[in-house]
C-alpha cells in the first residue's frame, strides 16, 4: 500500500491535478473570498457604527444579528439558505448563496472587531472634532474610522485568512471551489492522502501570500502615520 502511495503514478496524478485544483482556486475560491469579505466589511462598519453611536432600535437589531450569526455554525447557515429556503420558494444558486452566507457570517464577527477598534479611538478626538465645528459624520469618516481601521487591520487580516479556508465549506452546497475539485479527483484516483495534502498546500500558499500582503499593508499604514 505504501509503495502504491509513493509510486510515479502518484506523482503524475499530483502534477496533473495541480492546475485542476489551482484553477477553481483562482476562479472560485478567490472571487468568493473577495466578494464576501468586501460585503462583510460594509456590513461590519455599519453594524459597528450603529452600536458605537448607540442608535436606538438599530443597536438592538445589531446585537440580535451578531447573537444569531455567531451562535450558529457556518455550515448550518449554508445548508439553511441553500437546501432549506427552497422549501419556502426561495431558490438561490450555489455561488450567490455562498457569497451571501459568508458575507453575513463574516460581517457579524468583523462587526465586533470593528466595534472594539472604534471604541479604542480616544474620545477626546471626537470632542476636538466637534469643537472645530465638524459634524458627527465628518468626525467618523475623517478621524475615527481611519484610526479604527488601522487598529482593526491585523485582526481583520486574520478574519480574511480564516475566510479563505472556510470557503472550502462551500463544497457542501455544490460550489465547485478548490476542495470540491480535489474531492472529485481523489474519488476517481483513490489517492486521498497526497491529494488532500496538495490542496492543503495550495491553501497554505494563498494564506502565505495574504500574510505577506498584511505585513506590507501595515508597513504602508505606519509610514503614513497610522500607528
Amino acid at each position: 500500500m505504501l509503495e502504491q502511495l509513493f509510486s510515479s503514478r502518484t506523482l503524475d496524478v499530483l502534477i496533473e491535478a495541480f492546475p485542476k485544483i489551482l484553477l477553481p482556486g483562482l476562479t472560485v475560491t478567490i472571487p468568493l473570498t473577495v466578494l464576501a469579505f468586501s460585503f462583510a466589511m460594509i456590513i461590519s462598519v455599519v453594524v459597528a457604527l450603529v452600536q458605537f453611536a448607540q442608535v436606538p432600535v438599530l443597536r438592538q437589531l445589531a446585537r440580535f444579528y451578531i447573537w444569531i450569526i455567531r451562535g450558529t455554525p457556518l455550515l448550518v447557515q449554508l445548508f439553511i439558505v441553500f437546501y432549506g429556503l427552497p422549501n419556502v420558494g426561495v431558490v438561490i444558486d450555489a455561488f450567490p448563496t455562498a457569497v451571501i452566507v459568508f458575507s453575513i457570517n463574516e460581517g457579524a464577527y468583523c462587526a465586533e472587531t470593528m466595534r472594539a477598534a472604534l471604541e479604542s479611538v480616544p474620545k477626546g478626538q471626537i470632542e476636538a472634532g466637534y469643537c472645530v465645528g465638524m459634524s458627527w459624520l465628518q468626525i467618523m469618516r475623517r478621524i475615527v474610522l481611519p484610526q479604527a481601521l488601522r487598529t482593526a487591520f491585523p485582526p481583520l487580516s486574520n478574519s480574511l485568512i480564516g475566510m479563505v479556508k472556510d470557503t472550502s465549506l462551500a463544497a457542501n452546497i455544490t460550489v465547485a471551489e478548490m476542495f470540491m475539485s480535489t474531492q472529485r479527483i481523489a474519488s476517481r484516483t483513490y489517492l486521498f492522502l497526497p491529494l488532500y495534502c496538495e490542496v492543503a498546500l495550495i491553501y497554505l500558499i494563498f494564506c502565505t501570500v495574504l500574510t505577506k500582503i498584511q505585513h506590507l499593508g501595515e508597513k504602508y499604514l505606519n509610514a503614513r502615520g497610522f500607528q
Partner: protein
Amino acid sequence: MLQVENLHKAFGELQVLKGVSLTVEKGDVVAILGPSGSGKTTLLRCINFLEKADSGRLVFDGEDFDLGRITRREIARLRKKTAFVFQNYNLFRNKTALQNVTEGLITARKMPKAQAEAIGLQMLEKVGMADRRDYFPHQLSGGQQQRVAIARALATSPEIIYFDEPTSALDPELIGEVLAVMRQLAAEGMTMLVVTHEMSFAREVSSKVIFMEGGHVVEQGPSKEFFASPKEERTRAFLRRITHPEETAAPSAD
C-alpha cells in the same frame, strides 16, 4: 461678550455646578481657579456644550440661549465662534500637525485646501511649530502637541478660546513653551477663559480671576485685587495652600 447665568449641572445625584454665573468681556483673559473637584472643568465643558447643562442662561454676542433647551443647530452655530484647548491636547492622531490645523477649516467651513493650508501654516508659525508641519502627533512632545492644538484653535478665528488646564498634562520643563504662547495671545488681545493651576499665569497674564469651590463661584474680580487682597476666607486658604504647599501638606507616613 459672554455671559453665563445660574448654570446648574449634576451628574446623577452629584451636583457639580450649583448656579454659576460669570461674565467675560471682549479682550478679557479670565483665569478660573479652584481646588480639584470644584467644577471648573465641568463649567468650561458646559459652556462649550461638551457636557449638557441642566439649566442656565448663556448670552453670547447679545444672543440669548437657554442652556437646558439649546438645539443642536444653535450649538453648531455657537461653536463656530469659539475654540477649545484640551488638557490632553486631543490632536487628531491620523493627521499631521498642519492637517490638524486645517481639518476644521476644510470640513466644517468648506474652505479650499490651499487657503486653509496658508492659514494653517500662519497659525503654526505663530506657535513656533511651522517646521514640524508634517509631523504626526506621536512624533511631537506634549508641549509641541499642545502648541499645535492652540494653532488649531486659532485657525478658525474664534471670538473666544476656552482652555481646560492646558499645561496640567505636561512635564514641568514643557509648561513654559505653552504658557509663552498663551501670554502672546493675551498680549494680542485674544479673549480667553482659562481653567488653570498655573498661579503665575493667573497672576501675571489674566485680567480677571474667578475662584470656584464646591460648585459655586466664591469670589471673582480683577486679578490684581484677587491676589493682593482676597475678600473671602476660603480664597485666602486656597492661595495659602497653593503658595506654601509644604505648610499645609499632610504629614508623611514615615
